[in-house]
Protein backbone atom coordinates (compact mmCIF):
# COMPACT_ATOMS: atom_id res chain seq x y z
CA UNK A 1 0.00 0.00 0.00
CA UNK A 2 1.61 3.26 -1.08
CA UNK A 3 -0.97 5.58 0.41
CA UNK A 4 0.45 7.68 3.26
CA UNK A 5 -2.12 8.32 5.95
CA UNK A 6 -1.84 11.72 7.59
CA UNK A 7 -4.14 11.75 10.60
CA UNK A 8 -2.45 14.63 12.44
CA UNK A 9 -3.00 17.06 9.57
CA UNK A 10 -6.67 16.05 9.46
CA UNK A 11 -7.51 17.06 13.01
CA UNK A 12 -5.25 20.10 13.40
CA UNK A 13 -4.90 23.41 11.60
CA UNK A 14 -7.42 24.41 8.96
CA UNK A 15 -9.04 20.97 8.46
CA UNK A 16 -9.46 20.63 12.21
CA UNK A 17 -11.18 24.01 12.42
CA UNK A 18 -13.46 23.10 9.51
CA UNK A 19 -14.43 19.86 11.16
CA UNK A 20 -15.23 21.68 14.40
CA UNK A 21 -17.35 24.27 12.58
CA UNK A 22 -19.10 21.49 10.69
CA UNK A 23 -19.82 19.68 13.94
CA UNK A 24 -21.36 22.85 15.43
CA UNK A 25 -23.48 23.44 12.31
CA UNK A 26 -24.68 19.83 12.30
CA UNK A 27 -25.76 20.16 15.91
CA UNK A 28 -27.52 23.47 15.25
CA UNK A 29 -29.40 22.28 12.20
CA UNK A 30 -30.34 19.03 13.94
CA UNK A 31 -31.45 20.75 17.12
CA UNK A 32 -33.75 23.23 15.36
CA UNK A 33 -34.99 20.42 13.12
CA UNK A 34 -35.79 18.22 16.14
CA UNK A 35 -37.77 21.02 17.84
CA UNK A 36 -39.90 21.71 14.77
CA UNK A 37 -40.27 18.00 13.93
CA UNK A 38 -41.57 17.35 17.43
CA UNK A 39 -44.12 20.20 17.23
CA UNK A 40 -45.33 19.13 13.77
CA UNK A 41 -45.38 15.47 14.78
CA UNK A 42 -47.60 16.19 17.80
CA UNK A 43 -49.98 18.26 15.64
CA UNK A 44 -50.25 15.52 13.01
CA UNK A 45 -50.77 12.86 15.68
CA UNK A 46 -53.53 14.91 17.33
CA UNK A 47 -55.22 15.43 13.95
CA UNK A 48 -55.05 11.66 13.42
CA UNK A 49 -56.78 10.98 16.75
CA UNK A 50 -59.71 13.36 16.17
CA UNK A 51 -63.07 12.11 14.96
CA UNK A 52 -63.35 14.77 12.22
CA UNK A 53 -62.75 12.76 9.03
CA UNK A 54 -60.99 15.43 6.86
CA UNK A 55 -58.38 15.91 9.61
CA UNK A 56 -57.79 12.17 9.72
CA UNK A 57 -57.49 11.94 5.93
CA UNK A 58 -55.08 14.85 5.89
CA UNK A 59 -52.82 13.35 8.52
CA UNK A 60 -52.86 9.90 6.90
CA UNK A 61 -51.98 11.42 3.53
CA UNK A 62 -49.27 13.51 5.18
CA UNK A 63 -47.60 10.61 6.96
CA UNK A 64 -47.86 8.25 4.00
CA UNK A 65 -46.54 10.77 1.49
CA UNK A 66 -43.60 12.06 3.49
CA UNK A 67 -42.58 8.63 4.77
CA UNK A 68 -42.52 7.13 1.30
CA UNK A 69 -40.49 9.76 -0.56
CA UNK A 70 -36.72 10.18 -0.20
CA UNK A 71 -35.48 12.98 2.01
CA UNK A 72 -33.09 14.21 -0.68
CA UNK A 73 -36.00 14.79 -3.09
CA UNK A 74 -37.85 16.67 -0.36
CA UNK A 75 -34.83 18.86 0.37
CA UNK A 76 -34.48 19.71 -3.32
CA UNK A 77 -38.21 20.33 -3.54
CA UNK A 78 -38.21 22.82 -0.67
CA UNK A 79 -35.11 24.58 -1.96
CA UNK A 80 -35.69 24.69 -5.72
CA UNK A 81 -39.35 23.96 -6.19
CA UNK A 82 -41.38 25.39 -3.36
CA UNK A 83 -40.67 29.00 -4.31
CA UNK A 84 -43.30 28.75 -7.06
CA UNK A 85 -46.20 28.05 -4.71
CA UNK A 86 -45.09 30.04 -1.66
CA UNK A 87 -46.19 33.69 -1.45
CA UNK A 88 -43.55 36.37 -2.10
CA UNK A 89 -43.39 37.49 1.52
CA UNK A 90 -42.36 34.01 2.68
CA UNK A 91 -39.87 33.70 -0.18
CA UNK A 92 -38.25 36.99 0.81
CA UNK A 93 -38.10 35.87 4.41
CA UNK A 94 -36.43 32.59 3.45
CA UNK A 95 -33.96 34.24 1.08
CA UNK A 96 -32.43 36.56 3.68
CA UNK A 97 -29.34 35.66 5.65
CA UNK A 98 -29.81 35.10 9.34
CA UNK A 99 -27.41 34.88 12.20
CA UNK A 100 -28.40 32.12 14.50
CA UNK A 101 -27.44 32.70 18.12
CA UNK A 102 -25.38 34.78 18.93
CA UNK A 103 -24.05 36.19 15.67
CA UNK A 104 -20.68 37.96 15.36
CA UNK A 105 -19.08 38.60 18.73
CA UNK A 106 -15.73 39.28 20.37
CA UNK A 107 -14.42 37.12 23.16
CA UNK A 108 -11.16 37.63 25.07
CA UNK A 109 -9.72 39.93 22.42
CA UNK A 110 -10.44 37.49 19.56
CA UNK A 111 -13.08 38.37 16.98
CA UNK A 112 -15.46 35.64 15.93
CA UNK A 113 -17.29 36.39 12.72
CA UNK A 114 -19.78 33.66 13.47
CA UNK A 115 -19.59 32.65 9.83
CA UNK A 116 -20.62 29.11 10.54
CA UNK A 117 -23.69 30.37 12.35
CA UNK A 118 -24.90 32.18 9.29
CA UNK A 119 -28.31 30.89 8.43
CA UNK A 120 -28.87 30.92 4.72
CA UNK A 121 -31.92 29.97 2.69
CA UNK A 122 -30.24 26.60 2.20
CA UNK A 123 -30.26 25.91 5.92
CA UNK A 124 -33.87 27.03 6.17
CA UNK A 125 -34.90 24.66 3.35
CA UNK A 126 -32.98 21.80 4.90
CA UNK A 127 -34.54 22.42 8.30
CA UNK A 128 -38.03 22.54 6.79
CA UNK A 129 -37.39 19.29 4.92
CA UNK A 130 -35.87 17.53 7.94
CA UNK A 131 -38.68 18.67 10.22
CA UNK A 132 -41.45 17.67 7.83
CA UNK A 133 -39.85 14.30 6.98
CA UNK A 134 -39.15 13.35 10.59
CA UNK A 135 -42.50 14.64 11.87
CA UNK A 136 -44.26 12.01 9.75
CA UNK A 137 -42.29 9.27 11.53
CA UNK A 138 -42.75 10.93 14.93
CA UNK A 139 -46.52 11.14 14.43
CA UNK A 140 -46.61 7.40 13.72
CA UNK A 141 -44.49 6.61 16.79
CA UNK A 142 -46.70 8.74 19.02
CA UNK A 143 -49.85 7.12 17.68
CA UNK A 144 -48.40 3.65 18.13
CA UNK A 145 -47.44 4.55 21.71
CA UNK A 146 -50.91 5.79 22.60
CA UNK A 147 -52.64 2.86 20.89
CA UNK A 148 -50.46 0.37 22.73
CA UNK A 149 -52.26 1.31 25.96
CA UNK A 150 -55.22 -1.08 26.19
CA UNK A 151 -58.53 0.55 25.42
CA UNK A 152 -60.14 -0.60 28.67
CA UNK A 153 -57.80 1.74 30.57
CA UNK A 154 -59.55 4.65 28.89
CA UNK A 155 -62.97 3.10 29.48
CA UNK A 156 -62.18 2.44 33.14
CA UNK A 157 -60.95 5.97 33.76
CA UNK A 158 -64.01 7.41 32.00
CA UNK A 159 -66.19 5.21 34.19
CA UNK A 160 -64.52 6.49 37.37
CA UNK A 161 -65.69 9.98 36.45
CA UNK A 162 -62.69 11.52 34.68
CA UNK A 163 -63.44 13.59 31.61
CA UNK A 164 -61.92 12.55 28.28
CA UNK A 165 -59.06 15.05 28.61
CA UNK A 166 -58.43 14.14 32.25
CA UNK A 167 -58.33 10.47 31.35
CA UNK A 168 -55.67 11.20 28.72
CA UNK A 169 -53.77 13.58 31.01
CA UNK A 170 -53.64 11.37 34.11
CA UNK A 171 -53.99 7.79 32.87
CA UNK A 172 -53.06 7.30 29.23
CA UNK A 173 -50.29 9.86 28.70
CA UNK A 174 -48.07 8.96 31.70
CA UNK A 175 -47.91 5.39 30.42
CA UNK A 176 -47.71 6.22 26.72
CA UNK A 177 -44.83 8.66 27.19
CA UNK A 178 -42.67 5.97 28.77
CA UNK A 179 -43.34 3.67 25.83
CA UNK A 180 -42.80 6.38 23.25
CA UNK A 181 -39.53 7.92 24.45
CA UNK A 182 -37.04 5.28 23.17
CA UNK A 183 -38.38 5.22 19.58
CA UNK A 184 -38.60 9.01 19.62
CA UNK A 185 -34.95 9.28 20.57
CA UNK A 186 -34.00 6.96 17.75
CA UNK A 187 -35.98 9.21 15.38
CA UNK A 188 -33.98 12.17 16.68
CA UNK A 189 -30.80 10.19 15.99
CA UNK A 190 -32.06 9.50 12.48
CA UNK A 191 -32.61 13.21 12.02
CA UNK A 192 -29.05 13.96 13.09
CA UNK A 193 -27.76 11.36 10.64
CA UNK A 194 -30.07 12.62 7.90
CA UNK A 195 -28.80 16.17 8.37
CA UNK A 196 -25.73 14.99 6.45
CA UNK A 197 -27.83 15.36 3.28
CA UNK A 198 -27.69 19.12 3.78
CA UNK A 199 -24.34 19.03 2.02
CA UNK A 200 -26.16 18.48 -1.28
CA UNK A 201 -27.32 22.11 -1.04
CA UNK A 202 -23.99 23.37 0.31
CA UNK A 203 -24.87 23.85 3.96
CA UNK A 204 -21.48 23.75 5.68
CA UNK A 205 -22.12 20.90 8.06
CA UNK A 206 -19.88 18.00 8.95
CA UNK A 207 -20.16 16.04 5.70
CA UNK A 208 -19.67 19.16 3.61
CA UNK A 209 -16.55 20.03 5.58
CA UNK A 210 -15.22 16.51 4.99
CA UNK A 211 -15.66 16.96 1.22
CA UNK A 212 -13.98 20.35 1.53
CA UNK A 213 -11.01 18.77 3.31
CA UNK A 214 -10.87 16.25 0.50
CA UNK A 215 -10.71 18.91 -2.19
CA UNK A 216 -8.45 21.46 -0.48
CA UNK A 217 -6.03 19.21 1.36
CA UNK A 218 -6.37 15.89 -0.45
CA UNK A 219 -7.05 14.11 2.83
CA UNK A 220 -10.05 12.24 1.43
CA UNK A 221 -10.02 9.02 3.41
CA UNK A 222 -8.86 10.60 6.66
CA UNK A 223 -11.37 13.45 6.54
CA UNK A 224 -14.31 11.13 5.98
CA UNK A 225 -13.12 8.71 8.63
CA UNK A 226 -12.85 11.45 11.25
CA UNK A 227 -16.27 12.84 10.28
CA UNK A 228 -17.75 9.32 10.49
CA UNK A 229 -16.24 8.89 13.94
CA UNK A 230 -17.81 12.17 15.06
CA UNK A 231 -21.26 11.04 13.87
CA UNK A 232 -20.67 7.71 15.57
CA UNK A 233 -19.71 9.46 18.80
CA UNK A 234 -22.93 11.52 18.73
CA UNK A 235 -25.03 8.37 18.20
CA UNK A 236 -23.22 6.38 20.86
CA UNK A 237 -23.51 9.15 23.45
CA UNK A 238 -27.24 9.51 22.77
CA UNK A 239 -27.94 5.78 22.78
CA UNK A 240 -25.95 5.37 26.00
CA UNK A 241 -28.15 8.10 27.47
CA UNK A 242 -31.30 6.23 26.34
CA UNK A 243 -30.11 3.04 27.97
CA UNK A 244 -29.52 4.89 31.24
CA UNK A 245 -32.96 6.46 30.91
CA UNK A 246 -34.58 3.09 30.28
CA UNK A 247 -32.90 1.58 33.31
CA UNK A 248 -34.07 4.33 35.67
CA UNK A 249 -37.40 5.55 34.42
CA UNK A 250 -39.10 2.79 32.43
CA UNK A 251 -42.05 1.26 34.22
CA UNK A 252 -41.97 -2.49 33.87
CA UNK A 253 -45.59 -2.81 32.81
CA UNK A 254 -47.09 -6.23 32.23
CA UNK A 255 -50.54 -6.60 30.76
Amino acid at each position, binding site marked *: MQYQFNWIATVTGEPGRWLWEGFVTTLEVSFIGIVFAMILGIVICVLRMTRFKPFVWFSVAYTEFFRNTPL*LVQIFFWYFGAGV*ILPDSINDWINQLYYWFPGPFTLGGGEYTGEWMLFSSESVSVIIALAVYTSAFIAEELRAGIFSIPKNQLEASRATGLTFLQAYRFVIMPQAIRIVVPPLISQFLNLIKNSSLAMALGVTELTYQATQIESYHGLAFEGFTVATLI*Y*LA*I*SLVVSFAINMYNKHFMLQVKY
Partner: protein
Amino acid sequence: MSYWDVAPEHWGLIWDNLDYFLWGAAKFTDQFPYVENLGGLAASIVLAVLGILGAFWLGLGAGLMRISRNRFAKYTSIVYIEAIRGTPLLMLIFWFFFLAPILMGQTLPAFHSTLIAFIVFTSAYIGEIVRAGVNALPRGQMEAARGSGLSHVQAMRYVILPQALRNMIPSFVNQFVSLTKDTSLAYIIGVNELMRTAVQVDNRETKISFEIYITIAILYFVVCYVLTSYSRRLEKKLSRYQARDR
Protein backbone atom coordinates in the same frame (compact mmCIF):
# COMPACT_ATOMS: atom_id res chain seq x y z
CA MET B 1 -49.18 36.00 -14.34
CA SER B 2 -50.55 33.19 -12.27
CA TYR B 3 -49.17 29.70 -12.10
CA TRP B 4 -52.06 28.29 -14.10
CA ASP B 5 -51.01 30.22 -17.22
CA VAL B 6 -47.66 28.45 -17.39
CA ALA B 7 -48.73 25.10 -15.96
CA PRO B 8 -49.64 23.42 -19.30
CA GLU B 9 -46.29 24.32 -20.83
CA HIS B 10 -44.37 23.16 -17.74
CA TRP B 11 -46.20 19.87 -17.40
CA GLY B 12 -45.75 19.37 -21.15
CA LEU B 13 -41.99 19.57 -20.61
CA ILE B 14 -42.32 17.02 -17.81
CA TRP B 15 -44.19 14.72 -20.18
CA ASP B 16 -41.43 15.09 -22.78
CA ASN B 17 -38.81 14.05 -20.22
CA LEU B 18 -40.82 11.31 -18.54
CA ASP B 19 -39.08 8.49 -20.42
CA TYR B 20 -35.73 9.88 -19.27
CA PHE B 21 -36.97 9.85 -15.66
CA LEU B 22 -38.16 6.27 -16.04
CA TRP B 23 -35.19 4.55 -17.70
CA GLY B 24 -32.66 7.21 -18.62
CA ALA B 25 -30.96 6.90 -22.00
CA ALA B 26 -31.11 3.10 -21.87
CA LYS B 27 -30.18 1.13 -24.98
CA PHE B 28 -30.21 -2.61 -25.52
CA THR B 29 -26.93 -4.26 -26.53
CA ASP B 30 -25.82 -7.83 -27.18
CA GLN B 31 -23.09 -7.93 -24.52
CA PHE B 32 -23.45 -9.12 -20.94
CA PRO B 33 -25.63 -6.62 -19.06
CA TYR B 34 -27.63 -6.42 -22.32
CA VAL B 35 -28.42 -2.80 -21.60
CA GLU B 36 -26.22 0.26 -21.40
CA ASN B 37 -26.68 3.77 -20.01
CA LEU B 38 -29.43 2.56 -17.72
CA GLY B 39 -30.65 5.50 -15.66
CA GLY B 40 -33.65 6.98 -13.93
CA LEU B 41 -36.10 4.94 -11.91
CA ALA B 42 -34.91 1.68 -13.52
CA ALA B 43 -31.36 2.26 -12.25
CA SER B 44 -32.66 3.11 -8.78
CA ILE B 45 -34.61 -0.13 -8.66
CA VAL B 46 -31.65 -2.15 -9.98
CA LEU B 47 -29.44 -0.60 -7.26
CA ALA B 48 -32.03 -1.34 -4.59
CA VAL B 49 -32.63 -4.95 -5.72
CA LEU B 50 -28.92 -5.79 -5.98
CA GLY B 51 -28.38 -4.02 -2.67
CA ILE B 52 -31.04 -5.98 -0.81
CA LEU B 53 -29.88 -9.30 -2.32
CA GLY B 54 -26.31 -8.69 -1.18
CA ALA B 55 -27.38 -7.27 2.16
CA PHE B 56 -29.55 -10.32 2.88
CA TRP B 57 -26.61 -12.72 2.96
CA LEU B 58 -24.26 -10.35 4.76
CA GLY B 59 -27.01 -9.42 7.21
CA LEU B 60 -27.94 -13.06 7.81
CA GLY B 61 -24.31 -13.72 8.71
CA ALA B 62 -24.14 -10.67 10.99
CA GLY B 63 -27.45 -11.57 12.68
CA LEU B 64 -26.46 -15.19 13.28
CA MET B 65 -23.11 -14.08 14.68
CA ARG B 66 -24.98 -11.63 16.90
CA ILE B 67 -26.96 -14.43 18.56
CA SER B 68 -24.17 -17.00 18.67
CA ARG B 69 -22.62 -18.07 21.96
CA ASN B 70 -19.10 -17.58 20.65
CA ARG B 71 -17.94 -14.39 22.39
CA PHE B 72 -15.61 -13.30 19.61
CA ALA B 73 -18.23 -13.66 16.89
CA LYS B 74 -20.83 -11.97 19.05
CA TYR B 75 -18.81 -8.89 19.91
CA THR B 76 -17.44 -8.51 16.38
CA SER B 77 -20.96 -8.42 15.08
CA ILE B 78 -22.18 -6.05 17.81
CA VAL B 79 -19.42 -3.59 16.92
CA TYR B 80 -20.17 -3.97 13.20
CA ILE B 81 -23.92 -3.46 13.59
CA GLU B 82 -23.73 -0.59 16.05
CA ALA B 83 -20.99 1.24 14.16
CA ILE B 84 -22.90 1.11 10.90
CA ARG B 85 -26.25 1.99 12.43
CA GLY B 86 -24.65 5.02 14.05
CA THR B 87 -23.25 6.36 10.79
CA PRO B 88 -25.11 8.30 8.11
CA LEU B 89 -25.41 6.42 4.82
CA LEU B 90 -23.91 9.36 2.95
CA MET B 91 -20.73 8.99 5.03
CA LEU B 92 -20.48 5.30 4.16
CA ILE B 93 -20.96 6.08 0.47
CA PHE B 94 -18.13 8.60 0.51
CA TRP B 95 -16.04 6.31 2.65
CA PHE B 96 -16.20 3.36 0.26
CA PHE B 97 -15.75 5.70 -2.70
CA PHE B 98 -12.44 6.93 -1.28
CA LEU B 99 -11.41 3.58 0.20
CA ALA B 100 -11.25 1.87 -3.19
CA PRO B 101 -8.28 3.86 -4.55
CA ILE B 102 -6.35 3.15 -1.35
CA LEU B 103 -6.93 -0.60 -1.51
CA MET B 104 -6.70 -1.15 -5.26
CA GLY B 105 -4.83 1.85 -6.61
CA GLN B 106 -7.66 2.87 -8.93
CA THR B 107 -11.17 4.23 -8.47
CA LEU B 108 -14.17 1.97 -8.67
CA PRO B 109 -17.04 3.18 -10.84
CA ALA B 110 -19.47 5.17 -8.70
CA PHE B 111 -22.24 2.62 -9.30
CA HIS B 112 -20.19 -0.23 -7.85
CA SER B 113 -18.89 1.66 -4.84
CA THR B 114 -22.38 2.93 -3.89
CA LEU B 115 -23.71 -0.60 -4.32
CA ILE B 116 -21.10 -1.84 -1.84
CA ALA B 117 -22.02 0.98 0.55
CA PHE B 118 -25.73 0.07 0.26
CA ILE B 119 -25.00 -3.61 0.91
CA VAL B 120 -22.88 -2.89 3.97
CA PHE B 121 -25.31 -0.29 5.34
CA THR B 122 -28.45 -2.40 4.88
CA SER B 123 -26.79 -5.57 6.18
CA ALA B 124 -26.46 -4.00 9.64
CA TYR B 125 -30.20 -3.34 9.76
CA ILE B 126 -30.96 -6.81 8.39
CA GLY B 127 -28.71 -8.27 11.07
CA GLU B 128 -30.93 -6.67 13.70
CA ILE B 129 -34.05 -7.95 11.93
CA VAL B 130 -32.63 -11.50 11.87
CA ARG B 131 -31.75 -11.33 15.56
CA ALA B 132 -35.21 -10.05 16.48
CA GLY B 133 -36.86 -12.66 14.25
CA VAL B 134 -34.95 -15.59 15.74
CA ASN B 135 -35.44 -14.33 19.29
CA ALA B 136 -39.18 -13.91 18.68
CA LEU B 137 -39.63 -17.65 18.17
CA PRO B 138 -40.62 -19.52 21.33
CA ARG B 139 -37.66 -21.19 23.07
CA GLY B 140 -39.48 -24.49 22.92
CA GLN B 141 -38.84 -24.73 19.18
CA MET B 142 -35.08 -24.86 19.69
CA GLU B 143 -35.35 -27.14 22.70
CA ALA B 144 -37.63 -29.57 20.88
CA ALA B 145 -35.36 -29.61 17.84
CA ARG B 146 -32.30 -30.27 19.99
CA GLY B 147 -34.26 -32.84 21.98
CA SER B 148 -35.15 -34.77 18.85
CA GLY B 149 -31.44 -35.24 18.12
CA LEU B 150 -30.57 -32.44 15.69
CA SER B 151 -27.29 -30.62 16.23
CA HIS B 152 -27.37 -26.89 16.95
CA VAL B 153 -26.52 -26.05 13.32
CA GLN B 154 -29.10 -28.50 11.98
CA ALA B 155 -31.75 -27.14 14.33
CA MET B 156 -31.00 -23.63 13.12
CA ARG B 157 -30.96 -24.67 9.48
CA TYR B 158 -34.05 -26.89 9.40
CA VAL B 159 -36.28 -25.66 12.25
CA ILE B 160 -35.53 -22.13 13.42
CA LEU B 161 -34.51 -20.25 10.27
CA PRO B 162 -37.32 -21.47 7.98
CA GLN B 163 -39.88 -20.16 10.46
CA ALA B 164 -37.97 -17.04 11.48
CA LEU B 165 -37.16 -15.96 7.93
CA ARG B 166 -40.77 -16.30 6.86
CA ASN B 167 -41.86 -14.05 9.71
CA MET B 168 -39.18 -11.56 8.75
CA ILE B 169 -40.41 -11.06 5.18
CA PRO B 170 -42.46 -7.93 6.01
CA SER B 171 -39.43 -6.38 7.71
CA PHE B 172 -37.30 -7.20 4.68
CA VAL B 173 -39.84 -5.49 2.44
CA ASN B 174 -39.76 -2.42 4.69
CA GLN B 175 -35.98 -2.44 4.53
CA PHE B 176 -36.20 -2.67 0.75
CA VAL B 177 -38.50 0.36 0.71
CA SER B 178 -36.09 2.34 2.81
CA LEU B 179 -33.21 1.25 0.58
CA THR B 180 -35.16 2.36 -2.50
CA LYS B 181 -35.51 5.79 -0.92
CA ASP B 182 -31.85 5.81 0.01
CA THR B 183 -30.70 5.10 -3.55
CA SER B 184 -31.35 8.80 -4.16
CA LEU B 185 -28.15 9.48 -2.21
CA ALA B 186 -26.14 7.87 -5.00
CA TYR B 187 -26.80 11.10 -6.91
CA ILE B 188 -24.26 12.89 -4.73
CA ILE B 189 -21.31 10.93 -6.10
CA GLY B 190 -22.75 10.87 -9.59
CA VAL B 191 -24.60 7.62 -10.22
CA ASN B 192 -27.14 8.23 -12.95
CA GLU B 193 -30.30 7.23 -11.10
CA LEU B 194 -33.69 8.90 -10.69
CA MET B 195 -32.55 11.81 -8.52
CA ARG B 196 -29.69 12.60 -10.86
CA THR B 197 -31.85 12.51 -13.97
CA ALA B 198 -34.14 14.97 -12.17
CA VAL B 199 -31.26 17.33 -11.43
CA GLN B 200 -30.01 17.02 -15.03
CA VAL B 201 -33.40 17.92 -16.47
CA ASP B 202 -33.75 20.69 -13.90
CA ASN B 203 -30.41 22.18 -14.95
CA ARG B 204 -31.39 22.04 -18.62
CA GLU B 205 -34.88 23.50 -18.33
CA THR B 206 -34.16 25.77 -15.31
CA LYS B 207 -37.74 26.94 -14.73
CA ILE B 208 -39.68 23.77 -14.01
CA SER B 209 -38.01 22.72 -10.73
CA PHE B 210 -41.33 22.62 -8.89
CA GLU B 211 -42.92 20.23 -11.37
CA ILE B 212 -39.80 18.07 -11.65
CA TYR B 213 -39.42 17.43 -7.94
CA ILE B 214 -43.15 16.77 -7.54
CA THR B 215 -42.93 14.21 -10.35
CA ILE B 216 -39.86 12.54 -8.88
CA ALA B 217 -41.45 12.43 -5.44
CA ILE B 218 -44.56 10.80 -6.94
CA LEU B 219 -42.47 8.21 -8.81
CA TYR B 220 -40.65 7.23 -5.62
CA PHE B 221 -43.92 7.33 -3.70
CA VAL B 222 -45.68 4.93 -6.07
CA VAL B 223 -42.91 2.33 -5.80
CA CYS B 224 -42.52 2.67 -2.03
CA TYR B 225 -46.21 2.88 -1.20
CA VAL B 226 -47.11 -0.23 -3.19
CA LEU B 227 -44.39 -2.18 -1.38
CA THR B 228 -45.35 -0.78 2.04
CA SER B 229 -48.99 -1.74 1.68
CA TYR B 230 -47.94 -5.17 0.40
CA SER B 231 -45.79 -5.66 3.48
CA ARG B 232 -48.66 -4.62 5.77
CA ARG B 233 -50.98 -7.16 4.17
CA LEU B 234 -48.29 -9.82 4.33
CA GLU B 235 -47.74 -9.13 8.01
CA LYS B 236 -51.41 -9.70 8.77
CA LYS B 237 -51.46 -12.89 6.75
CA LEU B 238 -48.27 -14.36 8.20
CA SER B 239 -49.10 -13.62 11.83
CA ARG B 240 -51.82 -16.26 11.66
CA TYR B 241 -49.35 -19.10 11.12
CA GLN B 242 -46.77 -18.13 13.68
CA ALA B 243 -45.73 -20.61 16.38
CA ARG B 244 -46.58 -19.18 19.80
CA ASP B 245 -45.90 -19.87 23.43
CA ARG B 246 -48.81 -21.45 25.19
